[in-house]
């Protein structure tokens, strides 16, 4: 049962790490725009690939 000291210590430590990571992401602007990235993700890629795609007949 003595192992509980270690277990508790580690679990609190891990939880603190997550807390710190969250605070870091919050203050570095991660949540300022939570809408646009979802749309941006769906765009096609850069010019080089695009020229090839343009040759494919559009439906």
């Amino acid at each position, binding site marked *: *049962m003595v192992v*509980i*000291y270690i277990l*508790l210590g580690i679990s*609190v430590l891990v*939880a*603190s790490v997550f*807390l710190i990571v*969250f*605070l870091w992401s*919050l*203050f570095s602007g991660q*949540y*300022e*725009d939570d*809408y*646009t990235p979802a*749309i*941006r993700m*769906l*765009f*096609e890629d850069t*010019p080089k690939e*695009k*020229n090839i795609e*343009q040759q494919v007949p*559009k439906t």
Partner: protein
Amino acid sequence: MATTHTHTATTCYHCGDTCKETIHYDEKTFCCTGCKNVYAILQENNLCEYYTLNDIAGLSVKNPATAEKFAYLNLPEVKSKILDFSDGNIAKVTLYLPAIHCSSCIWLLENFHRLDSGVQNSRVDFLKKQVSITFKEQETSLQNIATLLTQIGYEPHITLNDTEGKDQERQRISKEQKMVLAKIAVAGFSFGNIMLISFPEYFGFDSFSEGSFKYFFQYVNIALVLPSFFFGGWDYLSSAYRNFRKGILNIDFPLALGLIVLLLRSLFEILTDTGAGYLDTLSGLIFFLLLGKWFQQKTYDTLRYDRDFKSYFPVAVSVRTENSEEQVPVTQLEVGQRIIIRNQELIPADSILLKGEANIDYSFVTGEAMPVEKVLGEMIYAGGRQMGATIELEVMKPVSQSYLTELWNKDDFKKTAKSQEPTLQLQSFLSKYFTYGLLAVAFSALGFWLFNSDMPKAINAFTAVLIIACPCALALSSPFALGTAMRILGKWKFYLKNVSVIENLAQIQTIIFDKTGTITERNNSEIEFVGKSLSHKDKTLIANLVLNSTHPLSQLIYQKINHNTEKLLLEDFKENTGKGLSGLVAGRFLRIGSASFVGANNTLKDYNTKVFVSIDGELKGYFLFHNQYREGLATLTQNLWNEGYDLHLLSGDNEGEAKNLQKFFLKNEKLHFNQSPQDKWAFVAKTQQNGQNVLMLGDGLNDAGALQKADMGIAVTENIAYFTPASDAILDATNLPYLAGFLKFAKGSLNVIKQSFAISLIYNIVGLFFAVQGTLSPLVAAILMPISSITVVVFTTLSVKAKEKEISGQETGNRRQEARHKI
């Protein structure tokens, strides 16, 4: 078949509008050269994917941009304020582009570097409609970027606000929101972990476990609660302290008191090994309080509308110098300077007309859609927009002292609603008495046990009372109830300035309506023709002429007289903004417009709009536009009378409409005509002196005094972009008929708050029952507190949502009634 000539309508490939005159390019049709140009630019740069992402990606570009327009962006003082960052090499700017509306926009703007090689990178924030552009200052300039953006249809909206630093407020708000989220994260972290570690405590450390664990858990709990207490609870502690020093006991005082006592007692118990402490209750309390604060903040931010004139004014204006013109920032305009104002530009300062024909559109200030003609030498007030050719004006007053800004900055008009937690009167009242009551109970418990010579129990009871008597309801019920209420009202297009407005709404007894624009529709009218009766041929001629004008009055006339009118040959069409139309229809010369334009004598002195008509020089008469009252007005006034409100009407017009108005306002003495803005203000003041709580509904700046004076002022608008600084709320005109429902809803919401106070009182009594006996166990405290908080939150939110039926209940009633009339 009748000889109807129908246009074969083609739609523009770029913006989707039907083309009046089709322009062909690259096998596609466009409605104007503007749209065609955008397409050409995109095509040259291989950006046609823009059109594949959305059906109607483009917006019509009717006003071509000239580089001139953005010349002021080269001025160093302007640049330094607009740029986010600049080191001579790389610069970064964030621009507001109101035209952003779809995914194609995002795509195109993020590929902007392909249109301007000086641009390195651009990133769009869709919800804020902003784009952040990083560019090389040596290769391109702010002016180039702005011009190019306009050319592809995304004109940046740069106003005085951006250069005068108000932007910082927008940043600050985000920072506050971030802080609350950070605090919630820390508080949640503490709360969760402490609860977990406290479990063994609840189930008892008996023979099985080693006693040493107990101490370990307790010390870990202390370590966990300290960040939550100091970081999370800081606002409450500091607010209570600040107000205490001023002698005020606000809502934060009992909260802070509870927090401090909880911590001290817990620390004492743990360190002296006399108990487990109440750290679980403490961390839970902080967590729930912060959740309430976050919810409150979110609501207020979404419904914020404290813009002022700075968000509408341009940054710079053209000033005439010796031989040419130069761009001068608006704030540096001096009296006596001669400014040049072009079509569609806003006049930034009170000035006198020196040259040109001025037709000033004051719609965003007064709501009047008709431009006003001004003569040479006449004073033109800031805020108006020139519609027509270029004019030159001499500045009479600096921008910050113009009539309008003076009006808006008057102390009367400044409602000090800057507070994040505006207190309701009810709430302030209750929190004060709550604190006194609480202290009374605590001290009497202390006294009782001391009297019985039981010192430990006395301290126990005293601190327990302070811990358990949770003003959670006070702190949580109003943000959640009122926040939900404001959201719901926002859904019904009724936007309140802040939460205390709901309380005002519930206390109203008298309602005063302004006439023009409030209960009458601005853009819709009943038309009758006064004069010689028009033959069918005459009507056809008129219809052919007005068809070509986009003026709202022309369109109304067209709708009225158009019955499959045949198309006739139109030559020489001329439209003089603000004056009228003229042209040759099938050889006959027509003039339609104002009295002076048509050459008629307008000796009739009433305020109704008249449009005169002459054919081949012969005056035929005029179209008379009657007030069209808003749909649902009759039901609204009927409901209000039934609910016991006293109604009045104030109008700047003459008694002409009295007959029509009587069916709404019933008695003649309720109607007041020929009211100037001062008269309206005085009337409101008099009604208030009679002890009545007054609600005033108006639509523009001429009501501003009265709106401010009233206990509650609502600006009724057809376009939320108009603003009246003196109003407590903005109501979209289409939802005016629901006013009676809104009032009921406000009353209902307040009742919900009162009920939630009652619920919390029950919890408090149960808790106090244990506390005064000195038998409050940490477990009971830890259970009661979250349960009471959650109950209060859920109850208030659901009840307020249920009250929404008060508004929509009216709706079904109205709809049924209107349906019957139509049949």
